């Protein structure tokens, strides 16, 4: 069903584009522990791609490989049709890949506005001297980027906390601010590590809506990790299922849901 065609239409009528990122035979070890074992999958433009699996399956490790925080011992990462050399996380970010973290990594001492502004750093080009002296170009750039940030803040409905220091915010709002910072970077690919972990039902619904809206309005490709099967089935176009570092399923939600290996992994069948 999923060939290398440039685009196709999913079961619920959404158009998915060409392959944007491809993970080829990725293996990641920490000393003797194998976190990811020979996994391949692709991400297509405009889709919401979920990675699911039980605790310790290697989902976060996979996201860290994509964002350059971990470097796999074997395998290749292909991005936009070219093999990506080993990159530091900040270089990956500069290629248009933004991310959020499972345990929220915000700048606690800074205001919401400042946090979101850091997402624009790579779009600000003026050199260090003109920044220090602050003449025209730097000032214009600041204003332009500020406008983008305000749009993101409006979009995620966090206007009321713009000036609040992040450390004072409740958990659910912090998650939203982190998403705002990632969005401000205007990413081609957005990586979300358990965006709904620890949220109540209402917050989860809000977050789901935001993720769908982001994908819908900006056409942002999203890779997300999530525990909540219900949420994953509602949100995603295609799902990769991992268990013990291996890929045990890959396809549209309905197909994956009925996959025997997936059912076993989630219901906890004895491994022999």
């Amino acid at each position: 069903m999923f060939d290398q065609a440039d685009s196709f239409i999913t079961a619920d009528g959404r158009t998915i584009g060409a392959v944007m990122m491809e993970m080829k035979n990725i293996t990641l070890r920490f000393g003797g522990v194998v976190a990811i074992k020979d996994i391949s999958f692709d991400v297509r433009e405009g889709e919401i791609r979920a990675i699911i699996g039980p605790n310790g399956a290697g989902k976060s490790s996979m996201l860290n490989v994509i964002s350059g925080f971990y470097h796999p011992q074997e395998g290749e990462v292909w991005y936009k049709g070219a093999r990506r050399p080993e990159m530091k996380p900040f270089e990956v970010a500069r290629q248009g890949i933004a991310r959020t973290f499972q345990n929220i990594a915000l700048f606690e001492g800074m205001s919401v506005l400042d946090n979101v502004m850091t997402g624009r750093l790579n779009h600000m080009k003026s050199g260090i001297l003109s920044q220090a002296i602050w003449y025209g170009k730097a000032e214009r750039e600041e204003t332009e980027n500020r406008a983008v940030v305000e749009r993101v803040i409006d979009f995620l409905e966090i206007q009321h906390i713009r000036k609040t220091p992040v450390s004072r915010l409740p958990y659910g709002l912090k998650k939203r601010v982190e998403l705002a910072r990632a969005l401000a970077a205007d990413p081609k690919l957005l990586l979300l590590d358990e965006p709904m972990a620890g949220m109540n039902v209402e917050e989860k619904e809000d977050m789901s809506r935001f993720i769908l809206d982001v994908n819908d309005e900006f056409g942002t490709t999203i890779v997300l990790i999530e525990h909540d099967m219900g949420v994953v089935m509602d949100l995603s176009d295609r799902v990769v299922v991992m268990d013990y570092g291996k890929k045990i399923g890959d396809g549209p939600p309905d197909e994956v849901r009925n996959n025997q290996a997936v059912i076993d992994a989630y219901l906890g069948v004895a491994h022999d």
Partner: protein
Amino acid sequence: MFPDQFLFGVEVLLNGLMAGVLYALVALGFVLIFKASGIFNYAQGVMALFAALTLVGIMDGQVPFSHLINAIFGMDVHHFGWHVPAFAAILLAMMVMVGLAWIVQYFIFRHLVGQEPIILFMATIGLAYFMEGFGDMMWGSEIKKLDVGIPQGGSFWIEEATAFLGGSNFYGFFIDQLDIVAAVVAIILVVLLVAFAQYTKQGRAMRAVADDHQAALSVGISLSFIWVLVWSLAGFVALVAGIMWGAKSGVQFSLSLIALKALPVLMLGGFTSIPGAIVGGLIVGVGEKLFEFLIGAPFLGGATENWFAYMLALVFLVFRPQGLFGEKIIERV
């Protein structure tokens, strides 16, 4: 008319404030690096010495490593024979400090990312002694005079303007012009640093790195670049401190010991606060001068300035370990 004793006390207070500004200048360099990278830079004092040596060397047209060159090639060169104007020499010295920042980052701290604070601290001790020796080798170890054109000696207009306050034995407040210049420069420096951190792209990135490394990486900030930037800024602050202290008491080894005076300032102000470094510096400066004047000299036989600052810091450590402006330390159990 005020009694002479009171006026003398006020003069002590004013001079204490001026001395405090100079302490604050050194403490500022520590805060910059500690905030952004968690490194307590023991070498900050030596950096001030090295910066001052380099500045004098450039101004006098000294040949760097002349001893080495003469010994190896059997030559006898010491000076190029030119003199560089102060302003140009300061710019050149600043470029040397940026180069030093780059070397420190690429040859030392890049390899120590994620190490224990004590290891980083040890590395800065090694760096301090290396730079001390390297500075000697490069520019020679004799005491040098630094004259960048800052006026010295008592300020006559302050003396004249205040002479009326006391009786016939009072000639007005004696305040060294160098101290006034140092205070003005320090205030400008702090305003510039705060503005840079608050309102520029690099400043924002700097604050981001100080706050959370992982998050900073994820928004595309290069940690190495920011650390070179921070070490350059600390080098700049060291240069300014080196100029002020060097002009005051000559460029010599003891200049590097001002770092030790910055320690109590940091304990008072907190290791992570730029305003803290300033206020801490002022408290130490005023405190030690007033204590000597009011208690030390009349009752304790004098020379209390040597230990008063550390004593005060110790008291602070007991009651407020994070300093006046430091981030509160909360340990979750």
